[in-house]
């Protein structure tokens, strides 16, 4: 992927660029908002990571200007403010995702992958049937089958599985699940998500040889055919 980083903090910018290059992305950097807007509108990009507070042109204004020109480029906003309202204003300005500093690199990577895939899989999101190996989920009839066997899930487990299937093959973090399935933007002190996942795992993997739901150490979970 070709990713643009607009960040004025040099240490954060360098580390981010290095980390993204290491996993195989090509990276452009901009140190202020104006430069960022210029690059974002002239270079072919797959994604932009924009700091919220930038010199010359504020991160929110950058995203707004970008959207005003009709560019659909996925944008992840990084913010050092990060309270309840800032998230809403960030998304309202045209951001596709919002992450508060300090963040874990694994969290950022997972969100970048999800954002990039969202563009590709625009049609899959609307599809009524989701499929992975022998696991099938029908969003219309709300039925889940694996290997021809019906799997009984609660409403919440169904939502959880649906979210995992829409992000199959990617790492999904606990915060992403909490946001995507429950629409909550805080970290509970209790390991609530882990327990929900282990129940889902019981339901879909227990009676089958090949597990589909994997734990990704230090990052989150992933639903995929590969080990």
């Amino acid at each position, binding site marked *: 992927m070709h990713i643009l980083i607009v960040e004025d903090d040099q240490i954060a910018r360098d580390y*981010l660029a290095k980390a993204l290059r290491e996993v195989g992305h090509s990276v452009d950097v901009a140190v202020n908002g104006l430069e960022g807007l210029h690059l974002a509108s002239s270079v072919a990009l797959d994604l932009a990571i924009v700091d919220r507070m930038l010199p010359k042109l504020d991160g929110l204004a950058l995203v707004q200007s970008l959207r005003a020109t009709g560019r659909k480029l996925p944008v992840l906003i990084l913010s050092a403010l990060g309270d309840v309202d800032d998230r809403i204003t960030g998304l309202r300005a045209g951001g596709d995702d919002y992450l508060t500093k300090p963040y874990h690199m694994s969290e950022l990577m997972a969100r970048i992958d999800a954002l990039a895939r969202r563009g590709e899989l625009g049609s899959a999101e609307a599809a009524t049937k989701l499929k992975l190996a022998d696991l099938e989920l029908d969003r219309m009839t709300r039925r889940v089958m694996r290997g021809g066997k019906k799997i009984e899930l609660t409403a919440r487990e169904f939502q959880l599985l649906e979210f995992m299937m829409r992000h199959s093959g990617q790492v999904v973090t606990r915060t992403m699940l909490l946001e995507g399935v429950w629409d909550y933007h805080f970290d509970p002190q209790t390991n*609530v998500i882990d327990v929900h996942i282990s129940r889902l795992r019981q339901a879909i993997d227990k009676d089958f040889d090949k597990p589909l739901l994997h734990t990704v150490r230090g990052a989150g979970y992933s639903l995929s055919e590969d080990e």
Partner: protein
Amino acid sequence: MDQEQRFLGVLASSPFRIAILYSIVFALGAVAMLGGVYFAVSRVIDGSTDNLIEAEVQGLREQVLVLSRSDFIELIEQRSQDQEVRGAVYLMVDPQLRPVAGNLPSWPKIAADQGKWIQFKVAVPYGDETRVHEVRAQRFPLPGGYRMLVGHDVQERQDVKNVMMRGLVAAVVLTMLLGLSGGFWMGRRILAHAGAISAVATQIMRGDLSQRLPVRDAEDELNTLAREINGMLDKIEQLTLGMRTVLDSAAHDLRTPLNRMQSTAEAAILQLDPASPERRVLETVTTEVDRMRGTLDALLRIALAETGTVAREAVDLSELVASIVDLYAPVTEERGIKLENDVAAGAHIQGSRQLLAQALANLLDNAIKFTPQGGRIRVFLRNEFGGPEVIVEDDGPGIPADKRELVLGRRVRLDQARKLPGSGLGLSLVAAVTKLHGARLVLDDAGPGLRVALKFRQT
């Protein structure tokens, strides 16, 4: 319904009540003044006719002694015809009460024991119609069993009295009407103004500090008051915005170095061998950064809630409580804790869904932390009359009554909790969020355990 309520509202307003009081006072004044006039005028006109009759009776009593009967009869006839003495009434009857002379058609039927003065009604022809007039008279015997009646038509004076009485009643009614309608008008005006003020005040309480009270183009007390309150609101808005700016820059200035620390440590970790002691040190650094971030998030959210400037939306509290219960249900089950809930449907409030969700999550985190295996946590949402009430109850050790106020302060952790994880800000955040929503936070003994109740107001 709305109109009716507004009408009743005006009736209950203080200007209207003052107007009622003053109307009554003025009406009493009108009664006293016009009543006095009525009384005095009545006395004067009553007295003058009575004197006239007295004099006539005296005169005739003297005449009857010196005149023969036929001359007396002629005198009576003459007096009866006299146009100058308008309204004079005479009647002379024989012992069988048959009229002999005078201008009355018959002797009035009056009980004998009526005393000196009698009053009766007579039909008087007026062109085609007849009218009933009031006559006041005296009677006296004549020689030979004849009787004499001398009186006066008092209808006119009765008319004057009636007119005066009607005037009096009309004056009282008019005073009351003017007073009441004036009061109603004033009440409505003031209520409209007060209503506008209270509507804006509600919006301001909900966190929209940009709102100002309406000021009309007049120099009355309400406008002066509204202007002064607006000045106060300018000050408050300025202070709150200042607080937010400080919060924002504090957030920025703390998160940026934390982010650098995290980035640098993570980058270094990737270069190191998993077993190296340096790596373990750096992993401790990232764990501590996480902890600091948790505390910072909590502190910033508490401070934010306390500025009261969080955006509000319509929140389905029933859905929210049910979803939090749903989020925590598996975890409690795994720990051998029974999570019971009874969530009433249809509870809606204005507020911040995220902050409310976090407050409820904090309460459940706490309850789970303090509830032993085999214990029980109960979550209720009741739609009380005054507003919805959320209750989280555990059967853990509870909080002693004298420490309940204390734990709501920042970073207070009771001795028994020191060995448990947590920032000690959980309940402080609950308290700040509760306050932000104009709700009441009540800590109670669940016997055994802690009962936390969030009592919201109806919106």
